[in-house]
Structure formats: C-alpha cells, structure tokens
C-alpha cells in the first residue's frame, strides 16, 4: 500500500498507472467494446467488406452494409472508428481492442516464464557454485552470444514447419533467448547474500538446500530481478510485435497490434493518405509500452536505488 502511494506521488509513475488501468479496463471490457462477430473465435479480427483499399475512419456505406447482411456474406460492420486495413478489410478498432488482451497475455507469459527459468538456473548456479556454476554460466554465455531479436526470428522460423505459425511459436522463441539476464542478476545477488550469518545459522540448524534457497536466500535477493522483469514486460511486447510485423508472430487475421502495423507496409508510397493504419496501432503500442516503462522506472527507484541508471536490454 505504501508502495502504491509512493507510485501515485510521482507524476511520471502516476501517468503510467493511469495508462495501465485504462488498458486493463479495455482488456476486460473487450467483449462489450467490440462484440465479436464470431463469438467462438473472438481473436479473429472483424472484417468490413471486400474493398481492396483501406477505408477511412467513419461510417461505411449503409446500403452496401445492408446488402452484405442480407446475403450473409460478411459480418456486420457499420461503424469503423479507426478505419480498416487494405487487403482483408480488417477493422483496426476491433484489432486494437482485442489486441490489448493479446499484449497482456504475451507480455506477462513471456516475462513470467523467462523469469522462472532465469531464477531457477541462476539460483542453482549461485547456491551450489563450483562446477554447477561453471556449467550453467557457460550455457548462459552461449545464449548471450545470440543477438536477441535475430535469434528469436531464427528460432521462430525453424519452429514453424513443426508447430506452425502462431502465438506459441513466437513466445517460445522469445523466451528461449530472454531468460539469461535474470539468471545473471539473481546469481550475483545470491552470491552476495549466501554467506551472510543468517544463512549460516539456518544451515547449522540443519535446514535442507531447498529450504535455505526458498526461505532464506531468495526473499533477500529477489527484488532487483523482479524490478528488472517489470521493466522488461514492455520490451517483450515490442519484440513480439516485431516478430508479428516481420510475419513470424501471430497468424494472419489474429488480433495483434504488430499484425495491423504489418499491413501498413503494403501502402508505403501513399502512407500519408492511409495514415490511420499506422497512427492508431502505433499510438496504442507506444502508450502500452510507455505505461509499463514508467511504472517499472519508478519501481526501480523506490525498491532498488542500486539499479538507478542501469539499463537492461
């Protein structure tokens, strides 16, 4: 609670909190904000007609709309608040609303799973030391030798023939190359805590390895890693959208922000006429990431002054 009040005092983190609350609200209210035309597949973006060029924000031709309803050719799509993409006539508003859920899912899953892997391996390395440490840290070195996005792109491409294109493939690719930072950080912090008197005391009292790690060491060493993870959520969402943008993320037609941005690439010579394809999804993505970064930045200053000015990639 005290933490929350301190976050509210700083104008930057307050802005972040307000933005995050807004996005949580949108994610929860998605079925009411944008009723899905196919209720069983809410993540399939609603489509508005068959025109090959992007339709501007506004109300579509009512006669055309009625004809489509009567013939049952396309779902109802009378109002397009943010316009449509060109090919496929995907409704940008619908994609953005449901894409909020995708963004939360992607950010939290990727961060959560990489954090778990990193914590596990990092604490094993630090606690047991010697050759366990040596082996784990060499593995970390190997993964560090890959540039993050390039490696994720490669793995996503290689996994596609076996498990298909989709959210899971891209998330596996990003997690595989994303956990090392946490392992390194927690290892350093555990090494600093490991030889403290209270750990020795627990050991002398006969506590087992697991008990010492989970009850005595981790609670005293975990904060910096958690702060780092909170700051990474935004950048994972960016990376995932980047994979989607390159055509290696979510499948075509799946409500995902990077996906919509990828459509803008087809209209590059006349992008200023079809500005809505880039401006709306771009702003949404930036605000979402900015919200996490503002909160994470403030959390870092409050919880771990040591990390101030430290940049994580």
């Amino acid at each position, binding site marked *: 609670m005290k933490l929350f009040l301190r976050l509210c005092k700083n104008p930057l983190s307050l802005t972040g909190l307000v933005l995050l609350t807004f996005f949580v609200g949108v994610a929860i209210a998605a079925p009411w904000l944008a009723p899905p035309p196919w209720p069983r597949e809410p993540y399939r973006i609603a489509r508005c007609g068959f025109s090959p060029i992007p339709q501007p924000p506004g109300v579509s031709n009512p006669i055309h709309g009625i004809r489509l309803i009567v013939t049952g050719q396309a779902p109802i799509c009378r109002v397009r608040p943010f316009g449509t993409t060109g090919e496929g006539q995907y409704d940008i508003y619908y994609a953005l609303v449901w894409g909020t859920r995708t963004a939360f899912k992607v950010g939290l899953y990727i961060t959560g799973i990489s954090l778990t892997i990193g914590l596990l391996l990092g604490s094993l390395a630090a606690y047991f030391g010697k050759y366990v440490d040596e082996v784990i840290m060499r593995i970390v*070195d190997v993964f560090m030798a890959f540039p993050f996005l*390039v490696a994720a792109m*490669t793995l996503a*491409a290689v996994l596609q023939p076996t498990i298909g294109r989709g959210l899971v493939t891209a998330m596996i690719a990003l997690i595989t190359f994303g956990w090392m930072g946490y392992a390194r950080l927690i290892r350093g912090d555990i090494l600093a805590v490991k030889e403290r008197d209270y750990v020795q005391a627990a050991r002398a009292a006969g506590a087992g390895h697991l008990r010492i790690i989970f009850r005595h060491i981790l609670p005293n060493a975990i904060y910096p890693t958690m702060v780092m993870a909170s700051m990474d959520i935004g*950048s994972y969402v960016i990376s995932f959208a980047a994979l989607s943008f390159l055509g290696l993320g979510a499948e075509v037609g799946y409500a995902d922000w990077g996906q919509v941005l990828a459509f803008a690439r087809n209209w590059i010579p006349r992008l200023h006429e079809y500005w809505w394809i880039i401006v709306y999804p*771009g702003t949404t993505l*930036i605000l979402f*990431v900015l919200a996490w970064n503002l909160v994470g930045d403030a959390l870092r200053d409050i919880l771990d002054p040591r990390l101030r000015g430290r*940049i994580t990639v």
Partner: protein
Amino acid sequence: MWAYIVRRLLLLPLLIFLVTLFVFGMYSFLPPKMRASLYVQDVPRSPDAMERIIERYGLDQPIHIQYLRWMGNLLRGDFGWSKTAQRPVLEALAHYFPATLELALWALIPVIFIGIWLGILSAIHHNRPLDHATRVFALVGWSFPSYVYGLLLIMVFYAWLRWFPVGRVSQWVLQLEATGGFHRFTGMYTLDAILNGRPDVLADALRHLVMPIFTLAYIQWALLLRITRSSMLETLRQEYVMTARAKGLSERVVIYKHAVRNALIPVATVAGLLLIGLLNGVVITETIFNYPGLGRWAATAATQLDILSVLGFTLFNCGLLVLGNLFVDILYAVIDPRIRLE
C-alpha cells in the same frame, strides 16, 4: 593484463563450439525431408530423389555424425544454398554485408554524438528542466518501437513531403553502374562515390540513407544517454573533480577535461549492447526501408522458410557479437587498469 586476455581467448573456442552446436540443434528441429529439400536447387525429377538426397547428405545418420558433417562443411566454407538470394549462403553474406556495414557506420555518428552529448548535458543540468526533458525523451524513446518510428518517418518524409526516398540508390545510379560509368570498389556507395569522384552519387546515396540512419540510431540514443548521464553524475561527485574546481579551473575545463574522460569508461562497456542493438535493428530497419542489406535478406529468408540462409545469418551475427564482446572486454581492461586486477 595478458593473463586476462589469454583466459578470454581460451574460452573462445569452447563458446564457438557450443554456439554451433546450438545452431545445429535448431536446424535438426526440422524433419529430414524438409532438411533434404533445403539442398535441392531445382525441381527433383525422379520419384526417389528425396531418398537419394537424404542418403547423399547423410540426413538419416546418427545426430553426432550429422553434426560433424555439417561442421566440416561449415569449416570448408559451405553454408549451403540460399534460395532467397539464389547463390551460396556465404556468397550472399559477402554480397549483402557492405550495404549493412555502410548503414551501421553512418548510424554510429548520431548515436555516439547525440547520445553521449545529451547524456553529459543532462548530468550537468542535474534535476533541472533539461534533465527532466531528456529523461522523458529517453523513456519515450525506449517505448517507441523502431518499426513504428520508421513507418512514421516514411509517412511524413517519403509519402507526404517526398524529401527522402526509400531503397538504396536511385535508378540512374544503377544505370550509370551498368554502363560502366561507376565502379564498385568496396560495395559501399558513399565511399565508392568519393573514390569515383562523383559528388552527385554521394548525395543520392546519402539522401537514401537519412531515414534508415535515424531509425537505426534513435533507440540507441536512449540507452547511451541514460548510461552517460548516470556515469557522469557519479564522476562529478568524485574528489578529484572537487579538487579541480577548488584549484579554480573553469567549469568547462573541469567538465570536459577531468570529468568526461573518466565518465566515458563505463560507457565503453555498453558498446557490446550497442552492437546487439545494431544487429537487431538492421533487420527491422532494412525491411521497412527496403534497403538491400543483410537484415532484409534474413527477414525475407525467415518468412520464406529459407532456413539455411537464416542460420548462416545467425552464425554470422554470433561471430560478430562474440568478437565484439571480446574486443570490448580487452579494450576495457586496457583503458581501466582496475579491471585487470579482478
């Protein structure tokens, strides 16, 4: 210091071995028939062609034998055939590399000058409006995906204002090249233009480079800015800075002669991170601006499942990154004697 360098060098072969093992691991995710199809350069004619290829390249052998064969091919410089580039992977790498190098070198100029300079400024003006402004700038920059930024640049400066074109050079330069009026010595147009004495080609190439340079550079500004700022703040609190001030030196001399030099030492360590950012950045940037370099080639290859090209590109990047980090560590040990004692 030599012991430190030798230790780093001794770990290098192990690291390279493990990296190739991992890349091979990714490659062997693919089913044998898919891997066999990667070796096919034209449409197979006989019905048992697949089996013959699997046998010929040993794709049904135990995994360690396959790895050794694959490794042997790599060492002989055979990275396989790139379908997207229609030439061997190694040749394709060599073909696309100059374009990417040119872009990266140009992008370093704004990265280093604006990043470091703004960082120093914001440390000097600590907690004053300029500092807050750069903090917000860095945070917003950090949250701004490069593809959104690049597309916005395209929307304003290419589609709307028509100031800067996309691609690499204009059609007339290509024609000039085809008719023999322009020699490619290095593959980098800006350098070649100077060597050829053609200021018009130089201007054209630079006009094409402006938007990609700023897209590639801007995300790095935020990184450098924050690091320079915190390191500079740390340095300004040191006693020798106080001594310099107490001696009555002008603020200018104190900052630029005494503080900045020491503050830049930690900045050197992030050179490795900058390199990663650059390697990641070229994929996105080149794809958006249709700039024919390594990144665009790799992105196209990845979407068209031209796996050998992607793996070749990844290995190439890993090599660059490993060597780059080694170089940075050694450089760090040279400029900061305290590191060597570790």
